[in-house]
């Protein structure tokens, strides 16, 4: 770090923190969906990254349609595209749960492998449909550019938007979990599945909705992703390990933990990436998390349910 003045270092830290915030937003949205599914069903969805990519491709598709048929709609399409990304992913999620996941109940490891098989199929589908090259949707004007705070310090608007989006989704999810009757049923099922079934909760339906909701949020993550990077068939798989670690390091099932660990991982990665060339920043971050998890496997915020 010797070559930088303290002023430059400060600006670098602030700018890298902001680029970290974009990564944080994507990781948080990915992590929330994964944590929801993992907490509910004890299932890890290896195809979660592909759901994210589906969200991103949905935005691209909408952008393409808008450009070709309704260019005047350009400034507004993005908002609709986000909603569409959510619904398409949620729908596919429900389908996958119905066709696959529910049959593998009580076999978490097999579910993990089966969803990996699914991710292969989805990736190839994207490749055949959209091509192997990375695509970028035309972003509306208002998302472009950056906000100049002072000389040498620019805060990109798309980053701010993504951050805002992820905060809105997080608040919505928490409200949904703790204020709606479905959220109540979902939390009841997590705590005691047998009892919930006995008091008349349709646990199969709760499972499907939870899985579908988690996938929908991955779709939003994908939509958010399009504003900060271009989308390729394997875009999702590049984020999946980070997203897993966010969930595990946060202490599974804990939304607060998910928030904290997504923030920590994203910030560490983007600040280290500036100073260490290439992939070393990522390697260092991942290594620290994995070693921390070996020492404290319950994560940051373990669930406080008695073991037996």
């Amino acid at each position, binding site marked *: 770090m010797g070559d930088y003045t303290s002023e430059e270092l400060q600006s670098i830290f602030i700018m890298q923190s902001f680029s970290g915030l974009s990564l944080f937003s994507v990781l948080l949205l990915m992590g929330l969906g994964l944590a929801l599914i993992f907490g509910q069903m004890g299932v890890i969805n290896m195809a979660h990254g592909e759901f994210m990519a589906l969200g991103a491709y949905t935005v691209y598709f909408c952008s393409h349609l808008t450009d070709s048929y309704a260019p005047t709609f350009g400034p507004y399409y993005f908002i609709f595209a986000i909603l569409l990304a959510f619904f398409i992913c949620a729908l596919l999620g429900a389908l996958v749960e119905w066709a696959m996941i529910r049959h593998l109940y009580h076999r978490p490891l097999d579910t993990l492998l089966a969803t990996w098989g699914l991710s292969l199929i989805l990736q190839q589908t994207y490749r055949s449909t959209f091509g192997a090259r990375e695509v970028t949707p035309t972003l509306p004007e208002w998302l472009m550019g950056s906000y100049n705070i002072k000389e040498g310090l620019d805060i990109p608007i798309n980053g701010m938007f993504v951050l805002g989006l992820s905060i809105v989704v997080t608040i919505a999810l928490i409200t949904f979990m703790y204020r709606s009757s479905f959220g109540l049923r979902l939390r009841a099922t997590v705590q005691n599945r047998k009892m919930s079934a006995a008091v008349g909760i349709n646990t199969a339906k709760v499972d499907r909705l939870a899985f579908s909701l988690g996938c929908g949020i991955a779709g939003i993550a994908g939509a958010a992703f399009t504003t900060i990077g271009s989308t390729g068939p394997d875009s999702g798989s590049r984020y999946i390990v980070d997203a897993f670690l966010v969930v595990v390091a946060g202490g599974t099932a804990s939304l607060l933990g998910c928030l904290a660990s997504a923030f920590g991982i994203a910030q560490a990665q983007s600040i280290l990436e500036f100073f260490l060339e290439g992939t070393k920043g990522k390697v260092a971050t991942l290594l620290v998390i994995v070693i921390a998890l070996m020492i404290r496997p319950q994560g940051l915020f373990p669930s*406080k349910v*008695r*073991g*037996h």
Partner: protein
Amino acid sequence: MNIDHPNVLEVEDLGVSFDGFKAVDGFNFYLAQNHVHVIIGPNGAGKTTVLDLICGKTLATAGSIKFKGKELRGSREYRIVRAGIGRKFQNPSIYENLTVFENLELSHPTGRGVIGCLMFRRTASIKQQCEDVAAQIGLSDRLDTEAGILSHGQKQWLEIGMLLMQDPEIIMLDEPVAGMSVRERTQTATLIRKISKDRSVIVIEHDMEFVREIADRVTVMHLGKILAEGSMEKVSNDPKVIEVYIGH
């Protein structure tokens, strides 16, 4: 302390709390040699937790557990087992897809390390021991049966048999007669009386008739603490005990 029946297990001031909730608190318990000591109490009194603490499944947050004068608190489960304390779970916990014989053989204490497992040979004496235990638990004619298809009561006995294979000095049984028929209960009572000739037994049970049949001594727990202790006669006439049982 009784000269004929010295204490093998001395639990003093034992306590555990889960996030501030004291599941067991200030628990004192002395197990005399060759005694059957029954712990009773309403649901949620902390009976199973006491067993979990003794066998190391849950770590105590206070107190001491001394087995023949040696402190066990903080030891890992397998060390406690190897020291000579066996434990049966509430629901029968056996290897369903192995035969009765294999279930018993796997519980034999020779070769429990990695190398020991690789070198293990089914010798005539091990075979004999398995057959002897099978006779004790009334499963002599089921040795080659897959354990999963045994009746519920037979599974319970098999698990007791697996403990006997370890030849422990203390056996802890968590509700051994739950779900058994009347006839099976009587047989289990006889079995417990028989095995306590050579070792001490701790039993958790709800069935008062059964407790009366087997108990040398009874401890009554309520809300994580000891309410009363003594012979079955004594505790069943204790007004505090009566209140807890009738009050609930």
